[in-house]
């Protein structure tokens, strides 16, 4: 064991003696935000830390840990990160489909949204689909739990019929527990008779 420790020390010493002068190792650039929200990346820790909070603001860090600001541009970012950025998966999208009273039939007004959902799901590679059914507050909790699940299952069936090659589709019913618009019990509310679908 002692011999191994000695050997490790020797190896470490060997590495230290051939250590080259610091050179740039890491380059970071903040990119414009999709939603336009204000955001930041903190480079490093403690007193030396540099905050990047402007689009195309950047910094380099060398092998000795020295941080230096170095602004970038769209063209330069594309040159260095083009392949990585091209591989970025699309953002998760959510859709809301509305349903006729006490029915698993999508309303006429939601047909277009349904078509958009199917087209988007078909376009995505290895898409994961989360389907959550809801009802308004008319009827018993037990009936609404069942109806909300039936609505979610109806959407799942349509996805399958449209040959969507999802890696998984999860359909759940939440009954009347999570209304979009809060109402008194037994009050009909078209906006609560819905299925929410998330494509990821």
């Amino acid at each position: 064991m002692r011999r191994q420790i000695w050997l490790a020390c020797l190896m470490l010493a060997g590495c230290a003696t051939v250590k080259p002068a610091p050179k740039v190792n890491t380059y970071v650039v903040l990119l414009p935000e999709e939603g336009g929200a204000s955001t930041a990346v903190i480079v490093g820790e403690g007193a030396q830390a540099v905050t990047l909070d402007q689009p195309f603001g950047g910094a380099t860090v060398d092998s000795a840990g020295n941080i230096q600001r170095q602004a970038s541009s769209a063209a330069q970012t594309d040159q260095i990160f083009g392949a990585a950025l091209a591989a970025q998966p699309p953002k998760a999208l959510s859709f809301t489909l509305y349903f006729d009273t006490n029915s698993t039939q999508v309303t006429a007004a939601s047909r277009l949204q349904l078509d958009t959902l199917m087209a988007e799901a078909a376009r995505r590679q290895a898409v994961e689909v989360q389907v959550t059914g809801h009802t308004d507050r008319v009827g018993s909790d037990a009936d609404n739990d069942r109806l909300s699940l039936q609505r979610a299952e109806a959407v799942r069936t349509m996805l399958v019929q449209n040959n969507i090659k999802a890696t998984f589709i999860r359909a759940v019913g939440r009954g009347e527990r999570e209304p979009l618009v809060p109402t008194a019990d037994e009050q009909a509310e078209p906006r609560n008779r819905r299925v929410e679908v998330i494509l990821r």
Partner: protein
Amino acid sequence: MNRCFRTILLSLAAIAASATVALADIGQIKNVSGAVFILRDKIQQPAKPGDLVQQSDVLITGANGAVGLTFIDSSRLSAGPNSRIELKQFRFNPTTQDGEFVTEVQRGTLAVVSGQIAKRSPDAMKVKTPTTILGVRGTTFAVQVEE
């Protein structure tokens, strides 16, 4: 020098490898181009769209490789050619949205769009490189590491 470091790292890795715990899937590979591999438990396998990833997986791309992934907190990572990215730590509670996400870029390029973990807590998502650590405050950015 490279070989020297590698010998030390391998000795350290052998010591650390004793406590590996199987954890749930944390994300999914969405797209692959060129040569892309997942290194898990010392076994390197070609990656394809739909493959699930776990904490401690290492993503490796070849000279013409690129890969994109989506995580269960809706974070998105994508790597360009000649990259080696380790998914060091990942923890996410979908109900409270609390979590922790630490990625290490050992070499190559990585583009990041942060998700719920960074949104919920400003210090919960970090990207490490061999020379620094990046704190992610809910944002889109890219990192390059040259060996």
